[in-house]
C-alpha cells in the first residue's frame, strides 16, 4: 500500500513552517524563492511539491519574510516543485514552456539549497481619450496575448479591463511577450439610447406633445468603433505592444466617434489581427 506512506507524510508535514529544516532527520527539500534578475527574496509565495510518481499528493508551504521554504522528512523520490505568487499563475522550477526540472531527493543528493527564480511580472498602463482630448471613462479594454502554442502562433484573449474617470487603465501580472489592445466605449454625450426624461410639469408634457425632436439629436447619435492600439479601427493595422521581463509599457488610444449606422466596426475581430495564423 504505497498510498498509506504518503498519507503519513502529509500529516507530518501539514504543520510545515517555512523555515530552514535544521535538526530534522530524513530528507528535506528547502531553498529560497527569488525574483529573477534582481535575486530579491520573495515572501508570501506558495510553494508546492508533488512526488512525480504520486501526482495526487501535494504538500504546500508559504515562504517566510526572507523568501525561504522547507519541507522536512520527505521520503527519497523525485518531486516536481511549483511556486505561485499571489495573483500569478503557478510556475514550475526552471520551467520552459511545458517542461520543468524535477528535484531528486535521496542519499548524497543536495535538495536543500534550491534557488527558485520567479519571473517578474510586467505591466501595461494606458489612457483612452476622445478626439477632443477628453478621457473616455468606463471603456472596455481588451487585452490579447500573441503567443506560441504547440508550435503555432495564436492570439488569445488575456482579460478585459475598465477605464476609470480619467480614461486610464492598468494591467499587471503580464508575462513577457507581444500583446494587442482593443477598446470598446461609448461617447458620454451619445444620445442614441436617449429617452426623453420625465418632466415634472404636466402642462409642459401636453405643450410638448407632437413636438419634433431637434435636429441636433442626430449629431449626437454616434458611437466609437472598436479601436486598436495603433490608432486604427482596422484590426489588420493594429500595432503590437511588447512587454519585456518585468517591464512596463504605457500606451495612449484615441477614440473617434462615427455615426452609429456603421456595421461591424463595433465588434472585435481577433482573426484579423496581424499574424493570427
Amino acid at each position, binding site marked *: 500500500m504505497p498510498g498509506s506512506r504518503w498519507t503519513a507524510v502529509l500529516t507530518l508535514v501539514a504543520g510545515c513552517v517555512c523555515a530552514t529544516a535544521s535538526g530534522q532527520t530524513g530528507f528535506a527539500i528547502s531553498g529560497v524563492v527569488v525574483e529573477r534578475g534582481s535575486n530579491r527574496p520573495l515572501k508570501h509565495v506558495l510553494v508546492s511539491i508533488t512526488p512525480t510518481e504520486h501526482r495526487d499528493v501535494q504538500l504546500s508551504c508559504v515562504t517566510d519574510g526572507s523568501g525561504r521554504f522547507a519541507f522536512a522528512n520527505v521520503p527519497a523520490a523525485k518531486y516536481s516543485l511549483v511556486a505561485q505568487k499571489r495573483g500569478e499563475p503557478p510556475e514550475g522550477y526552471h520551467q520552459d514552456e511545458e517542461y520543468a526540472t524535477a528535484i531528486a531527493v535521496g542519499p548524497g543528493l543536495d535538495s536543500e539549497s534550491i534557488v527558485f527564480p520567479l519571473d517578474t511580472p510586467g505591466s501595461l498602463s494606458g489612457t483612452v481619450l476622445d478626439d477632443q482630448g477628453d478621457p473616455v471613462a468606463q471603456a472596455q479594454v481588451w487585452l490579447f496575448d500573441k503567443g506560441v502554442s504547440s508550435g503555432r502562433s495564436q492570439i488569445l484573449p488575456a482579460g478585459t479591463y475598465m477605464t476609470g474617470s480619467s480614461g486610464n487603465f*492598468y494591467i499587471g501580472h503580464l508575462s513577457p511577450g507581444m500583446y494587442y489592445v482593443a477598446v470598446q466605449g461609448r461617447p458620454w454625450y451619445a444620445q442614441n439610447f436617449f429617452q426623453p426624461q420625465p418632466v415634472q410639469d404636466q402642462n409642459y408634457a401636453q405643450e410638448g406633445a407632437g413636438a419634433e425632436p431637434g435636429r441636433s439629436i442626430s449629431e449626437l447619435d454616434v458611437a466609437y468603433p472598436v479601436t486598436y492600439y495603433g490608432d486604427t479601427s482596422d484590426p489588420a493595422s493594429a500595432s503590437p505592444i511588447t512587454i519585456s521581463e518585468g517591464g512596463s509599457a504605457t500606451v495612449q488610444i484615441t477614440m473617434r466617434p462615427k455615426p452609429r449606422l456603421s456595421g461591424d466596426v463595433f465588434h472585435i475581430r481577433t482573426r484579423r489581427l496581424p499574424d493570427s495564423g
Partner: protein
Amino acid sequence: MVRMRLLLCSLALVLTVCCLCFGAKQIVSISGQAGSSQSSRAQRSVTGTVINSVTGEPIRRALVRLNGPTQSFAFTTADGHFQMDGVQEGAIYLSAEKPGFSDPSQTGNPVILQTGVNQAVVKLIPQSVIQGRILDSDGEPIEGVQLQLLAQQITNGRKEWQMRQMTQPSENGTYRLENLMPGAYLLSTMAHPVFGFQFTRQAGKLPQEAYPQRFYPNSPDLGSAQPIDLKPGEQAEADFTLPEAPAFSVSGSVGPVQDGISISIGDADGQQTFMPAAFNRQTGRFRLPAVPSGSWILSFHSRNSQGAAYYGEQTINVGSSDIAGLQVLLQPLPSIPVNVADKGDASPPQAQVQLIPDEKSASTGNYMATPSQAGDSQQAWMIRNVAPGRYGVSVQSNGPGCIDSVSSGSADLTHDDLIVTTGSQPPPINVTFRDDCATLSGEVHGGSGDAKGFVILLPGAAYIQPNITPIQSGGHFAFGNLSPGEYQVYAFSNIEGLEYANPEALRGFTGQRIDLEPNQKANVTVDLMVRGSN
C-alpha cells in the same frame, strides 16, 4: 405656480436618498416682448454659460440640453458658452451634463429667470474622488483587499452610515473611488488573508495570516474611525498600511439545514465585513479559514418557500487558536403584530409604526409595520422578521386622531425600549389613539422676501416621529393630529444634512417651544434660520 412646483420638486429631492446623476436643471421662462403675437410662437435664442459651482470657472465641452416645445442640444465652447437658436417660447428646461460633475439641485434651488431674460448660467458641482494605495508593512502593494466606502446619510432625520461603494485595489495596490458627492465618508478595508483567497483553499492547515479590518486612518472599528470630509471637487488621498496579524480557522455547523442559508460576518459594532468562507449547503458545515483576532458576529439568514425568515447568530472571540465545533441553531424570526385601537368611534385611525435599532445593536435597518398578507396567522399589521436586538419605537399618526399610548405587554414603549431576543415571540405592539388632538399653524418670518424652506416640529416625546412640512406661500405652515404635549418648532431655509430627529443636533439652533393643550388650535410665529448646504 411654477414656484410651487419647484418647492415640491426640491422637497422630493431632499427627502429621498440622493442618487448620483449628471445634469443640472433650470427653468427659463421665455415669453415674447410686449406686443408680440400670442397666436404664433416667437422663435428665440437662448445663450448661456456652464460653470463650475466651486471655482466659477467655465466648463468646456459640456452638453447642454434644452427641453421645451422644441428640444435642442449644444456643446459649450472653450469659454463655457453655448447658444441655441430657433427656440420656441414656452416653459423651457435647461440641463447640462459633463463627466465628473453632478446635479446641484440637491444643494441649491433652481433659478427662475424672469420674463424676457433668456440668458442662463448653469452651475455644475464637481464630483469628488478618494484615492490611495494599500500597502503591507514592507511597503509592497496588497491587491485583492476589499474596500468599503460608507457615506453619512440623513434618513428620516437620523444620521446613519450607508454603504455607498465597494472596490478593490488594482495589481499595483492603488484604488480610486469616483463620482462622489460632497459629504462625510468612512473608508474601511476588510479582513483579508495574506495569502489570498485561492491560497487559503490550497494551503489547507497552513498557519494563516490576515490583514485585519482597518477604518481610515488606522482604527480597528467604526467607533474610533475618522470621517473623511469631502469638499466638492476634492481629490482626497487615503493610504492604508496594513499589518500582518495571525489568523485562525473558525468552523462548525448550522442547523436545521434548509435551502438558501447565507452567512455573513460583522464586527463587534455590527458593521458587515467580508472574509473567505466555505459553506456546505447540504450538511450545514461552515469554515472560515483566516479570521483575525478579535470579536466577530457570525450571522446566518434563510428564508423558506413560504417567506418565513430564520436567523441564527454566534458571537466569536478569536484569541490565539482555532475555533471548531460551533453549533448554530436557526430559529424563526418573530413578526410582531401591531394593533391600532381607537378610543372614539370614528373611522379606523392609521399610524405609521417603525422600530429603530439601538446604535449598538447588530441589527441594522428600520422595521416598518405593513398590512397582513395571505398566510399570516393573524389579521393585523405586522412588523416582519425582526432580528434580535434593542429597538426604540417611532409612531406617526396619519389621522384621524393622535397617538395616546404605545405598549408591548407590560412595557410602555413611550419610555422603554423593545427588546427582541432569539427564539421568543414579543407581545403585540398596541397603539391607542385619542381624539382631543391639537393643531398648530403659523408663519415663518425672515429670509429675503417670501420665506422658503421647511418647518420641523420636534415632539418632546421621543417615540413620536418628528413632523416636517414645506413652508407655503406667504410663509404659512400647518400641522394637524398632534398629541397634546411639548414641542419645539424650527424653520430652516435648507435641511440638507440636518439630523433633525436628533434633539442634540438641533441644540445649536433656536427653536420655539410650545406646549399644546388638548383640543388647542395654537398659532406661532417662527424666525427662519438660514443654513447653507453642509
